[in-house]
C-alpha cells in the first residue's frame, strides 16, 4: 500500500514528474555514453600501452631489467617458448632481443637500438604490417632489416640498399654484418622511430653471438584489458613459473611499467568523478521536486501523522517516491543510453579534425575511438543514479517526518 501510494503520488503532478524523470534519464544516458567512450579509450590505451608495449607478462633473466647486460639472457629459448605456448592461458608469446649497434649507410652512421624479433609472432603483438610507411615488414628471410621512419631519413637509405651493423658481441668479439633495408615503419613511438631497427631474432642472435637465447619472452594472457593485479595475468604468471622454473624472473606489466599502471588507474577514477558530478546535478532536480511535493502535501502528511503514522513510515513513503522516480528514469535512460552506445560502437568518435593519428605522451593513437560497452558499467551507473535519487530525497523525507500534525493541519489545503 505504501508503494502504491508512492506511485500514485508521483502522478499527481505528472508533468513535473515527467520532467524530473527525463532529466535523470538524460543524465543516465549521458553517463552511459561517456563510460562507453572512456572504456573505448581505455581499451585502446590498454592495447597500445600494455598489449603492444610491455605485453601482459615478461620473462627475463633476473638481472636483465636492472642492468640490461647483453649476457643476461633467457637460455634454451626454443624449448622454453614451446612449453610456454603449450600451457593453458597463453594467448600469444614472442621472444625479443635487444642490442646497441652502429648502423652505417653509404653516407651516414647512427647509433641504433636493434630489436631481434620473431616476425610472425611479433605481428600478433604489434601490427607492424599496418605501420609500414614504405616497403614491407620482415619476411623471416635472413639479413633483412626494417628501419624507423626517422632513422631511415637520417641514414639516407632507400629500400633495397644495404646497411652495415657494427657492435660488440657478448663474447667480446667485434660483430659486423650487412642487411638489406626491406621496409620503413612508423611504430607509434617517437623514440623508436628515431633510433629503432628491427631484424629477425636469428640474425641478431648470430650478430651478438647469443644462440638460442633472447632477452625477454613477452606473453599475452586471455584478459582483454588487464587491470593492475588482474587475476588472469597472475594465473598466467603462476603457470609460467611452473613452465620456466625458478631461475628466471617473471613480471606482470604493472611491475614492468608502473607509470602505465598509474595512468590506467587514474582513468578509472576520472570516470567515477564525472559520473558523480553529472548525477549530483540531476539529484538537485530530484531534491527540488521532492521538496515541493512534500511542501504541497503538508496538510495531508499532517493528517497521516495525526492518525498515528510513525515518522519512519513517512520517511519511507517519500524515499519510495524518489526511488520510483529513479526507476522510471532508468528505464528511459538505459534505452537512450544504449542507443548512444550503439552509435559510438558503430561509428566511433573522430578525435581530430583532420583524421590524423594523434599523439599523447609520445604514443600515437588512431583518430577514431570506438566505444566499448560493459554490462557492469551500466549496472553501476543505474545503481549510482538510484542511490543519488534516494539520497536527494532524504532531506525532504525528514522534513515530512518532522511535521507536527497540529500545525500542518492548520494549513489550509
Amino acid at each position, binding site marked *: 500500500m505504501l508503494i502504491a501510494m508512492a506511485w500514485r*503520488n508521483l502522478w499527481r503532478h505528472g508533468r513535473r514528474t515527467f520532467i524530473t524523470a527525463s532529466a535523470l534519464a538524460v543524465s543516465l544516458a549521458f553517463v552511459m555514453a561517456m563510460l562507453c567512450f572512456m572504456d573505448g579509450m581505455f581499451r585502446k590505451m590498454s592495447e597500445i600501452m600494455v598489449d603492444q608495449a610491455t605485453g601482459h607478462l615478461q620473462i627475463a633473466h633476473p638481472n636483465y631489467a636492472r642492468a640490461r647486460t647483453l649476457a643476461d639472457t633467457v637460455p634454451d629459448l626454443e624449448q622454453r617458448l614451446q612449453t610456454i605456448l603449450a600451457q593453458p592461458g597463453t594467448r600469444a608469446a614472442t621472444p625479443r632481443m635487444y642490442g646497441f649497434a652502429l648502423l652505417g649507410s653509404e653516407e651516414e652512421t647512427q647509433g641504433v637500438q636493434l630489436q631481434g624479433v620473431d616476425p610472425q609472432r611479433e605481428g600478433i603483438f604489434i601490427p607492424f604490417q599496418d605501420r609500414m610507411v614504405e616497403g614491407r615488414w620482415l619476411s623471416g628471410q635472413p639479413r633483412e632489416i626494417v628501419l624507423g621512419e626517422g632513422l631511415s631519413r637520417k641514414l639516407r637509405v632507400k629500400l633495397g640498399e644495404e646497411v652495415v651493423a657494427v657492435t660488440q658481441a657478448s663474447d667480446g668479439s667485434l660483430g659486423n654484418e650487412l642487411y638489406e633495408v626491406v621496409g620503413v615503419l612508423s611504430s607509434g613511438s617517437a623514440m623508436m622511430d628515431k633510433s629503432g631497427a628491427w631484424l629477425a631474432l636469428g640474425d641478431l642472435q648470430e650478430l651478438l653471438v647469443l644462440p638460442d637465447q633472447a632477452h625477454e619472452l613477452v606473453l599475452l594472457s586471455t584478459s582483454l584489458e588487464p587491470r593492475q593485479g588482474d587475476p588472469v595475468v597472475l594465473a598466467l604468471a603462476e603457470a609460467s613459473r611452473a613452465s620456466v622454473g625458478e631461475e628466471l624472473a617473471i613480471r606482470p606489466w604493472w611491475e614492468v611499467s608502473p607509470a602505465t599502471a598509474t595512468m590506467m588507474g587514474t582513468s578509472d577514477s576520472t570516470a567515477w568523478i564525472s559520473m558523480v558530478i553529472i548525477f549530483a546535478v540531476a539529484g538537485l532536480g530530484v531534491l527540488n521536486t521532492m521538496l515541493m511535493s512534500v511542501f504541497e502535501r503538508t496538510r*495531508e502528511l499532517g493528517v497521516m501523522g495525526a*492518525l*498515528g*503514522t510513525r515518522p519512519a513510515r513517512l520517511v519511507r513513503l517519500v524515499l519510495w517516491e524518489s526511488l520510483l522516480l529513479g526507476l522510471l528514469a532508468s528505464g528511459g535512460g538505459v534505452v537512450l543510453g544504449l542507443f548512444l552506445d550503439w552509435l559510438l560502437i558503430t561509428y566511433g568518435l573522430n578525435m581530430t579534425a583532420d583524421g590524423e593519428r594523434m599523439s599523447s605522451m609520445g604514443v600515437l593513437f588512431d583518430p577514431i575511438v570506438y566505444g566499448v560497452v560493459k554490462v557492469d558499467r551500466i549496472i553501476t551507473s543505474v545503481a549510482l543514479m538510484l542511490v543519488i535519487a534516494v539520497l536527494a530525497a532524504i532531506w525532504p523525507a525528514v522534513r515530512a517526518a518532522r511535521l507536527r500534525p497540529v500545525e500542518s493541519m492548520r494549513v489550509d489545503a
Partner: protein
Amino acid sequence: MSIVSVRNLRREYTQGAFTVHALRGVDLDIAAGEFTALMGPSGSGKTTLLNLIGGLDEPTAGEITVDGQDLSRMKAGDRSELRLRRLGFVFQSYNLIPVLSAVENTEFVLMLRGESAANRRQRAMETLAAVGLKGMEHRRPSELSGGQQQRVAVARAIAGEPALVLADEPTANLDSTTGHELIELMQRLNRERGLTFVFATHDPKVMEAARRVVRLEDGQIASDERKGS
C-alpha cells in the same frame, strides 16, 4: 468508567511578547458510550482541547488521562501509538488521502496497525456499508461529494473500533442538511455500537442532537448539560 479525564488543563500559546490563554483550567470527564458536543464560539478553545485529548499537543499545565493512560507522561511516539490503537479522528474537511480510494482510506489505519490485507479490506468494506457508502468503495475522494467524503472519514475513524472518536467541526464545510445527516450517522453509531464520540461544533442545530453539551467560553467551561432520554 471515564474514557477521558481532564484536570485543571491549561494551554498557553506564546507569540512574541504576549501570551494567548487558549485553555484556562479545564476539568472534564467523559464516560464510555457518551455522545458529547463541545460548543462555543470560534476561538473559545475547542480545537485546542480536542488536540490535547487526542495527544496531538502538549498542555502547559494539568493532567489528561485517556483510556487509562496519562498523556502528560508519554513520549511523542507512544502518543502516536495510542492514537493509532485507541482513537479515531474526523477533522473539518479535506482530511482524506487524495490518492487512496474510499476503501483504501478506510483501511489505512488498519494497515498502519499491521493487519493482513484480506482482513482489513473486509473490515473496511463492512464499515463503508455501515456509513451508507455501499457501491462507492473504489471512488477517490475527488469523485465524492463533501458529505460522502466526511462519511469516509467517519468510516476510517471507526473501522479500528476505537475507544474514543474525536471530531473537530466535522460539519463545518457541509450544507446544513448534509451536516445533519452526518450527525445522525454518528448518533446511530453511538447507539448501535456504543462508540464514544466527542465533537466540537459551533452550529446550534447540531447541539440539539447531542445528549451532553459542554460549553466552552474563553478557554473555560461555562456549562455542562446532560439531556434525559
